[in-house]
């Protein structure tokens, strides 16, 4: 019986790996065509339709990562982490501020920053966790309050030198040329790293012990929470979300620049997660890519102003027409729509 179950589990594991490999191979085949499009830039302005797809893909990856982090926490604890954007900003600032203090390699600094933000996220999770079953208002306010404190920390680290901060990476400035088109390495690296992170995350959630604990909490809510081990493993979701957020920040900063408003990205990731179906992991990623593409398209064909409003217009339309999004279930909000106050 036990052996059977283990065999079944291994079979599922290899099934996932296999599908991932096939998907990755297809992706790699398509990649040259995509990067062909990434190169079409002149004077900072994206001109071609292909460039729009590329730019949408880049920002879509970032939105997808942040939305994924939000979804992880939502699945584990039924709360929306409004401080996620501040994790992104803190990750970016601590990775690039460290270059002034610490003569370390890019990868070392990135790893340190991810570890720092993960640890902070776990602490935040431990603080917010008891509030989750009580009331929506308390969790919303608590995560917003945490966001305030993390923002103060970020600004203390940055010391108002956001714009001067060096965002050197091993990829930046390098490009290779295929068929006469320049392909910036940074964008390519972003897409590949995102794909790797998402694949790794899906494998983790589906096949590891901690991943199944996470899914158990997501399915059974408070019933699963009665088990002390499971209760603690809800914090894994926070740790992962913090790490994903920091990674997104580190990848985003060289492309978009470091600004104080970086933390507002959570308000772009939420429309992405809702479009994909709030609570669904693949939905979060798909939604991110779609929102990114829509924004890039609106920026090209309408105006900058329209570009900034696109995500919110899409969110409102989705909420009015189909609140459960593309991949979501109508049950996703069952637990959270209880009484308003404890």
């Amino acid at each position, binding site marked *: 019986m036990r052996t059977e179950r283990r065999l079944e589990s291994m079979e599922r594991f290899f099934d996932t790996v296999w599908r991932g490999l096939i998907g990755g191979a297809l992706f790699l085949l398509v990649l040259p065509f995509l990067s062909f499009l990434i190169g079409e830039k002149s004077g900072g302005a994206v001109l071609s339709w292909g460039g729009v797809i590329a730019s949408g893909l880049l920002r879509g990856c970032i939105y997808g990562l942040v939305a994924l982090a939000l979804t992880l926490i939502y699945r584990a604890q039924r709360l*929306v982490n409004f401080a996620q954007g501040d994790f992104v900003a803190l990750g970016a600032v601590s990775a690039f501020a460290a270059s002034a203090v610490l003569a370390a390699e890019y990868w070392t600094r990135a790893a340190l920053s991810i570890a720092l933000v993960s640890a902070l996220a776990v602490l935040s999770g431990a*603080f917010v966790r*008891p*509030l989750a079953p*009580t*009331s*929506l*208002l*308390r*969790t*919303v*306010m*608590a995560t*917003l*309050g*945490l*966001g*305030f*404190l993390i*923002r*103060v920390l970020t*600004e*203390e680290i940055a010391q108002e030198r956001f714009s001067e901060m060096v965002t050197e990476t091993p990829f930046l400035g390098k490009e290779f040329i295929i068929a006469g088109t320049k392909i910036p390495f940074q964008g390519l690296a972003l897409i590949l790293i995102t794909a790797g992170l998402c694949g790794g995350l899906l494998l983790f959630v589906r096949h590891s012990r901690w991943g199944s604990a996470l899914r158990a909490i997501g399915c059974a809510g408070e019933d699963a929470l009665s088990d002390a081990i499971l209760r603690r493993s809800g914090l894994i979701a926070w740790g992962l979300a913090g790490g994903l957020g920091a990674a997104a920040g580190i990848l985003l900063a060289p492309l978009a620049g470091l600004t104080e408003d970086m933390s*507002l990205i959570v*308000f772009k990731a*939420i*429309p992405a997660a*809702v479009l994909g179906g*709030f609570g669904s992991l693949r939905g979060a990623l798909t939604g991110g890519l779609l929102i990114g593409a829509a924004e890039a398209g609106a920026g090209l064909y309408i105006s900058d*102003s329209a570009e*900034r*409003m696109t*995500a*919110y*217009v899409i*969110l*409102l339309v989705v*909420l*009015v027409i189909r*609140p459960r999004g593309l991949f979501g279930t109508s049950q996703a*909000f069952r637990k*959270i*729509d209880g*009484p*308003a*106050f*404890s």
Partner: protein
Amino acid sequence: MARPFLKTHYKQDVRLLVRGGGASIYGLVLILALTAPWAVSANMISQLTYFYIFALAGLSLFILVGMSGQISLGHGAFMACGAYATAVLQGSGSDLALSLALSVALTGVTGFVFGMLIGRLPRLLIVFATFSFAFIILEISSRWDAAGGASGVPVSPAPVFLGLLLDTGSRRYFLVLGVLCTALLTVLNVQRSASGRALRAIRDSKSMGAGFGVNIVHYRALAFAYSAGMMGAAGSLYAIWALVLEPSAFDLMLSVSLLAMVFIGGMGRVHGVFFGAAFLVFLPEGLAALGRSLTLLSTRTVMPDAVGMGLHRAAEFFMTPLAQTTALGLAILIVARYMPEGIDGVWQRGKNYARAFPLSPGQHGQGARRTGLIRDKS
């Protein structure tokens, strides 16, 4: 009044003041507020006006969050709507009373339509819808030329209200106080009317409310309309207080601060709104005063250099906006985790404790009442 929320008779449910015996205290507060312009400095009057505007905004959120259970992260947008409507109408030379009424009507109708659209959603999605709405309004107001774009739009410093010229700070103070009192009466009346009970029913349980025949979407939209209208009035008054409107004043930070204000103050009773508004409005002053006293301490007393430097740096930090963000964040976290009923809840608990002393007040003061030492007034 040891058990503030327990009612034993229908008459208690429709009384204007939840606590019947407090009329004299409220009267005294009103007299103090009315005589304030002759007693304190012009700067203080301006601060008080600002406090009243925020209390008005807090009352608006009290209806929405405290009574109907919907959470809005986008009420700054309704404030912006009211403020810009007033600025445009004032620019065309109309009477302030008309501008105020039109602003309230505009935001109220917008709120009702918006509430109808999103009323059927789960509450979490309502939060998302409100901040999207706010971002869209913010983007429009920073692009729209009639609203002055990103550089802002000036408002006439001497508005005319029903033929009265409001050219001094204290005259504007009385206008704001009047609007605040009207809004307060409205909230108290909504609270004790059938609508208020319907709202409370769907706040506590959607399915129970629906079971009793409350039309959820209609009442949620109604709460949104009341709330948005009141926020429009707050924006309108903010326009004549600030005299220049910049889109950046109505950003997400304002919406979050307003929500934090009512949350910190406490949602159980209207009183919480005033506690919260006082906290938010006088927080910068308080921190600056703390910073000044720390500076004094570090210069006047003899202490090791390291400690002195530390105090000095702390004092500098208290003067910065970052210190306000820190204080607000800490206050939110403390309230969320340890005192969910806010400042008002602590105040009431303290009162019960003092009444029952030396006995323990127990849960809602029951322990002491059983001994007959305190009598339930209601």
